[in-house]
């Protein structure tokens, strides 16, 4: 009851005209930076930090939070339409979503991602309102051994995206693991595979690789292929809105995606990418017709899109409840709080209850605004696909180049983008899937860091993974997932 009262008073604050305006500005900006690759929510909030000297805390924080979760709505747009992920958390969306667009179903793909984001954002905000202390406690019990066990589990689920041939899929995965090694090793400070190039010391950006493989590689491939066979423009077949069947197929993935995404966001090393992988793998396992995956299955868009949105709200949970920034944007939001002399954490709910509850209430409002903002935009976005192919491909290349340059203002990154684009072209030419590269690149370094941390803490004792109940359980689940199906078949035969 006390929570409801606090929430109501939060709404009364968030519903003032000024705060509604800040909320709208935030979610609109968020959608915009989500659409553009290269400029993400973290940089946007950082550049807007100076407004803290002019705007009152509730207005500024409502706007900043809006930018953060708004970016998750916008990020899916370019993934679906142009195969150019605006954020790393929408890379998986590009896989299924762009296939849907190619089959004339861009409208339903955009709609399921917008509505899924709304469902996930709202459910996750409800979770943030009522169960955040609980979630945060669970998140804290994850140390290096538990994270490593979780990464092993994630690696096993990767098989869902490997494609038809295990050999080709694993080759792609190992290319990703290799790219992930480039840069300064966090644990020892040693440079690896940097070849004396200072720009490589900080590693290679995931978004650069994703845009290179997906957008540039795809464009080169299509250009080479279409040179002979003149294809017509991508046609929109059927309605741009979701049909009854689309709704039925989306609801389950939305809910499951939320369930996976929220706790991951609250975890200090969870992030928004891994839950999208897990959600995708889960939907493929549960789907009535898994063979449709890779050819534009709506479940493969609905689930990951819900997961990345829920995870960004999960991040707000550990930021508000514990003062822990679990993503780059959260770290800058923390700086914004500090500009006002506020310290997120347990004391924030006591000392600045009004502000916290206004912020939480604004997240409910912001999600509604985003839905209203994004649904009508779909009609405009799909018109992009009516652009004739040569112009569309040229546009994608310009968009990809500008975006990657914008991330670090580095000419070297553009060279890298096109080198990776060429790799993507060759992979497509010889039928290698490209998504495992990204997954290897994200999971590999995380798994390595957690493994080495765990072993450093245990002073080299591998048993640490079995002594900790949580990591032992996770490893047991992994073993079951690998051996289980085989065992079942064995049992059935006898």
């Amino acid at each position, binding site marked *: 009851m006390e929570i409801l009262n606090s929430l109501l008073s939060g709404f009364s604050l968030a519903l003032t005209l000024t705060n509604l305006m800040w909320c709208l500005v935030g979610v609109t900006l968020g959608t915009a930076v989500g659409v553009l690759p290269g400029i993400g929510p973290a940089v946007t909030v950082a550049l807007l930090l100076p407004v803290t000297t002019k705007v009152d805390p509730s207005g500024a924080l409502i706007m900043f939070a809006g930018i953060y979760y708004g970016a998750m709505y916008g990020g899916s747009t370019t993934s679906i339409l142009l195969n150019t992920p605006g954020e790393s958390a929408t890379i998986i969306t590009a896989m299924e979503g762009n296939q849907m667009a190619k089959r004339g179903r861009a409208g339903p793909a955009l709609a399921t991602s917008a509505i899924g984001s709304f469902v996930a954002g709202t459910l996750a905000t409800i979770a943030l309102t009522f169960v955040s202390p609980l979630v945060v406690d669970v998140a804290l019990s994850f*140390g290096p051994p538990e994270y490593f066990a979780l990464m092993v589990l994630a690696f096993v689920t990767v098989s869902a995206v490997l494609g038809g041939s295990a050999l080709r899929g694993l080759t792609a995965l190992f290319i990703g693991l290799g790219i992930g090694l480039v840069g300064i090793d966090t644990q020892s400070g040693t440079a690896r595979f940097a070849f004396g190039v200072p720009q490589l010391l900080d590693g290679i950006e995931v978004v650069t690789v994703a845009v290179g493989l997906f957008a540039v590689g795809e464009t080169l491939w299509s250009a080479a292929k279409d040179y002979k066979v003149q294809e017509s423009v991508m046609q929109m077949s059927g309605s741009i809105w979701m049909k009854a069947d689309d709704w039925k197929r989306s609801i389950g993935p939305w809910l499951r995606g939320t369930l996976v995404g929220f706790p991951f966001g609250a975890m200090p090393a969870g992030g928004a990418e891994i839950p999208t992988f897990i959600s995708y793998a889960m939907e493929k396992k549960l789907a009535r017709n898994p063979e449709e995956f890779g050819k534009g299955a709506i479940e493969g868009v609905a689930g990951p899109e819900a997961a990345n949105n829920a995870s960004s709200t999960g991040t707000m949970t550990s930021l508000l409840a514990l003062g822990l920034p679990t993503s780059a944007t959260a770290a800058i939001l923390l700086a914004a709080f500090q500009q006002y002399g506020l*310290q997120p954490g347990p004391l924030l709910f006591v000392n600045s209850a009004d502000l916290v509850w206004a912020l939480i209430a604004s997240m409910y409002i912001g999600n509604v605004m985003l839905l209203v903002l994004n649904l009508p935009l779909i009609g405009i976005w799909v018109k992009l696909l009516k652009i004739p192919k040569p112009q569309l491909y040229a546009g994608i290349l310009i968009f990809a180049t500008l975006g990657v340059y914008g991330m670090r203002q580095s000419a070297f990154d553009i060279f890298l983008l096109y080198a990776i684009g060429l790799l993507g072209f060759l992979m497509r030419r010889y039928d290698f899937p490209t998504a495992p590269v990204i997954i290897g690149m994200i999971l590999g370094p995380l798994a390595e860091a957690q493994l080495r941390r765990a072993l450093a803490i245990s002073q080299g004792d591998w048993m640490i993974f079995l002594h900790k109940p949580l990591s032992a359980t996770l490893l047991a689940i992994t073993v079951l997932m690998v051996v289980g199906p085989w065992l079942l078949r064995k049992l059935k035969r006898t």
Partner: protein
Amino acid sequence: MKYLHQSLRAGFIAAALFAAASASALDSVKFMIPANPGGGWDQTGRSLSASMQKAGVVKNVQLDNKGGAGGTIGLAQFINTAKGDGNAIMVGGMVMVGGIILNKSAVNLGMVTPLARLTGEYEVLVVPANSPIKTLKDLVDKIKADPGSVSWGGGSAGGTDHILAGMILGAVGVDPAKVNYIAYAGGGEAQAAILGGHVTVGVSGYGEFAGQIKAGKFRALALSSDKRLAGIDVPTMKELGVNVELANWRGVFGAPGISDAQKKELIAALDTTVKSPAWREVLTKNDWIDVYLAGDAFGKYVDEENKRIGDILGKLNLKK
């Protein structure tokens, strides 16, 4: 004709005003921030440039973020593009000194013109509230008994936190190479590892842990300052018998090859700025400690830091 005459006259007046103003203020200063938006250097650069404008010593500022490799990518660009430019300022600090050594960078701080040290932040050692370790002495006893059993959670390898951990081991007579240091990428991840009890002790800038200390989730064991800090009830390492002092300082540098007159002009502008109310407010807001030191004295300090940090990185087996 009359109109032309008027606008000419207006132009002359404007030009005259312009000339008068530039005698006391720099027209435009280009700031190189060798980090991505959001971090400590970015905040330093942004608040310093705003304070310089408010203090009336600079009219226009232009900021350029160029992050990466401990700031050495930004440093290289600054050296290449700003040579001889009396209106260029680069932000830097202790982390860059370490970054240059660790990355075996082709460029170094000897190639730019030291202007001033601005702010400092001291490091704090913390344990989770339920830890059996109550004091710095408990920690030192544990280190002496078995250095490997004490895991230190902090920022990236070779950074300020790692350096401090190594210095503490050295100060209590244990080989710094034995430090069991667990590097975390972001402040949030390290804090979570400490809160969850996954590492023995946490080390970071005081500001980063202040919230958890005030909330009673962390117990602060000691600060790395030379004397107690106003308003912070935490003893220093020195007064507890561990002879270590370390500040993560941030400062500004001028372009390579600027004239003495240009250097003096920039330092004069900084002298005025650090005394201005705008800058004072920035310091309090961010919990930064004023360690202003300008000109040749700062140049000497950078040289000393270079030697001291190179030394400890060597002992940590990080300098290859």
